[in-house]
């Protein structure tokens, strides 16, 4: 099962600052929804644990997350391979950064591929839940990158 996602948001930070944040695994990984822990393997590679599940079927997923592309200050892309409860998922998440008046436009896109028991058990629920989690990741990145604007946006 594959889910493609994309979108964009603006932040009141310079492109260089924004890139520095997004290309830093130690800053990026904690923004993953239900983040539990992070262990760095090397500069660009980490083992991240997140809670994952649907309904009462829940577990801790282990993701090997790698900064696959890093073209300062325009593009960063992560790839991840995760395992949980007899299931597996592959994640690609990329960010293209454009300078705009007063900040940076972050264009994000990616693909989540899921395999195994969780997909079968969750059935039709998995896509909406995955989309919700992707939105939570983007929201978390926005807040981390631009707390004031996120606060204003929320209200």
């Amino acid at each position, binding site marked *: *099962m*594959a889910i493609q996602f994309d979108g964009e948001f603006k932040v009141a930070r310079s492109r260089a600052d924004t890139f520095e944040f997004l290309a830093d695994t130690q800053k990026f990984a904690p923004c993953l929804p239900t983040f539990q822990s992070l262990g760095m393997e090397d500069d660009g590679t980490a083992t991240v644990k997140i809670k994952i599940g649907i309904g009462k079927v829940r577990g801790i997923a282990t993701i090997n997350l790698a900064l696959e592309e890093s073209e300062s200050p325009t593009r960063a892309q992560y790839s991840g391979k995760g*395992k949980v*409860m*007899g*299931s*597996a998922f*592959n994640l690609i998440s990329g960010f293209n950064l454009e300078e705009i008046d007063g900040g940076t436009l972050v264009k994000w896109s990616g693909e989540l*591929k*899921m*395999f*195994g*028991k969780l*997909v*079968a*058990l969750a*059935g039709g629920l998995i896509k909406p839940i995955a989309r919700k989690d992707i939105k939570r990741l983007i929201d978390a990145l926005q807040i981390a990158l631009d707390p004031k604007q996120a606060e204003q946006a929320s209200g």
Partner: protein
Amino acid sequence: MSWIGKSPNRKEDVRLIRGQGYFVDDKQDYGLLHLHLVRSPYAHAHIINVDVAAAEALPGVICTLTGAEVKELMPESFMELGPEPAANIQDYPMAVGKVIFQGEPVAAVVAETPALAADGGALVDVDYDMLDAVITAEQAMEDEEVLHESAGTNKTWQGVYEYGEVDAAFDEAATVVKIDRMHFHRFASTPVENNAVVAEWKRHGELDFFCNNSFVGFAQQLLAPALGVSVDQMHIKTHDIGGSFGNKISNYTQMAIAALASRKAGGRPVKWAETRTEHLLSSGHGNERTFLDTEVALDKNGVITAVRSRHIDDCGAYPRYEPLGCVIWSQVLPATYGVRNFRIDFSQAVTNKCPAVPNRGYSRMQHLWFMERIIDICAHKLDIPADEMRLRNYITEFPYTTPNGCVYDSGNYPAMLEKAKELIGWDDWKKKQADARAEGRLLGIGIGTTLDSGTNNFGQARIMNPHLPFSGNSEVATIRIDLQGSVIVTLGSGPSGQSHETTTAQVVAEELGINPDLVRVRSGFDTGWNTFVGHSGSYASQFAVTGLSAVHGACEKLKAEMRRLAAFILEASEEDLEFGIGEEGPQLSVKGTDQAVNYWYMGNLVNNDNAVLAGELGDVTLNIRHVYRPPFTVPDVERKYGNLTLTYAAQLHIAVIEIDRDFGHPRILAYAAVDDCGTVINPKIVGGQVHGATAHGIGAAIMETFQYDETGNLLTSSFSDYCPITSMNMPDVQYGSIQTPSPFSYSGAKGMGEGGGAPLHTVSAAVQDALITEGIIVTDSHHSVTSVFELLRSKDESSGVQVDKR
């Protein structure tokens, strides 16, 4: 009193309805260990590493197995029945280096309890490198991604079946109907009991299995060389089996894992009991088939004169038993119709899906569905009523030799149609349909005529692979009178719910003039006890013909011995003796006198007090083995010609279905099923089998499907998604029968039970009839709410059917 055609209570029910059945998971042994299989979440991937250290460190875990170890422990991989390239496939019960389908075992954990084994399984760490999945057979045929490097191609078998003067028939046709593409979907019969085995590889080298395999004679031939033991070292036993429908023929792969696990665990018995999700994901699915470029030639009266088509079968990840499915359909080449000219180009390919296994109606139902679709599509296109179209095309003279040499023994399809119409109230429904159409409602009436070619003789195995044996469909039974005078029967086949104990007792009672209650038919199957041949087993609807003919033959021989013995004891002539029941139980008596000898006396004399029998009665043992061998000849492999089946039961169903125009929901308003299995031995059992096959077929037609996504995830691997049919979804079935006795079986009975997938043909026909007013042609066998909704939504698109009138 005759016991044939009666419905005594089932002998099996004495234990089964009291909760005293004995199934594999009931077995508890001292020192019993439990096995959990770690399965691949990916459909297609290289295995980079399997780390079992954490699992092995868990207290209570005894050992683990990986694919690499399994390969090391097995002297050779499992044999594939097909010739090259299928024969070159390395087929181990656990993935070695590469997984080919989601759910394929990659490791096993053996522990003191099932829960500990599962916990250990969660600690096994497997690294994969994912590959692109090949999901359709058509995609597989392109060979862009080859699944088995050792085969070098995904195309595992191909053959052209050509009979008659096909091109000439098309040249002379009044009409040619062309159908671009049809598809028969993937489903399975989901027996109540999942696969299970207890294996014990004893320290002295003998290997015991207690399992629910339904074709033990075949399983042991595959297991023995793969595990490096002789057939005699291997003891396979079954008892009660909660349904198989063919699915359990192929659980020998899991039996092998359990055996190797027991060996590694020092010879302790190891139990593996499959979960429902595992069963749906990985135990075996029915064949999925695609029919391409079909052309049908018809004369000016709507009689079909020729069919040419290209069929591709999807056998999933490993062919195993499966290439038989490439040939077995040809038992019913023309279906119930008198078409003489055929050209079918048949191919089979492997895909990254669960391996296909035999499934109720195996391979033939796909072809019968294809032929029924042809009939209905042509009928609609030529504006001939569906019943009339069938009457114009039915075979009516029997025995009938098909273009490929099969011999249909007997039948009367028009009479079945008449009976089914009567049962369902055909004329009333036609009026209601006219009213419904006037109101804009979608109401359809569909007919499905089908065949259950019981007693396949494995001639198709020879056609598919000339190196395979041709069984000729022989079967074995033993009967004996024991020390206490009891009549004991053993069968070559292990039943899985077909009531073999009851029908066997009826046949023996009939022959010996006694009561079925006095006949003990040993339950289950035991290679150490039962006598059998290499192809003994419960499959292909064969028992009523082959199994009971073996029982009948054994009875005849036993009676001859009993007559000789009784004549000696009673000092009477054999001609003056009669079988029956007297005051002292079953006996032989001298007609018109009170002289008699009972079974106890004869049994005791032969088994105990037997010195007196020296001399001319020295060969009397009252212990008979009989092998039934039907008169088959070896098929012509080059021409793919020969008689592949002894009997042909027939089923004719009619369904009335209304489809919700807005949501696509197909609702069955009425259903009739007429069966002809020749002489009926036990009407209640036949009725049960007809209802069971009908339920399975309706479930498959409107609910059940194994749906994969583009990456090879099975999306329907639990009963909440697969949705098997239950009594809540089952319509009332108006059931009737006719009997056209087979001239080829001693009793006139025909093999039955698989049902030929009649409801699939019938539901497709009814859905077609309901939607024809919308210009929709049905070309898929699955009619769930979603798929019918899609048909309604896409009704403006081309149907893929062209009519060329000349």
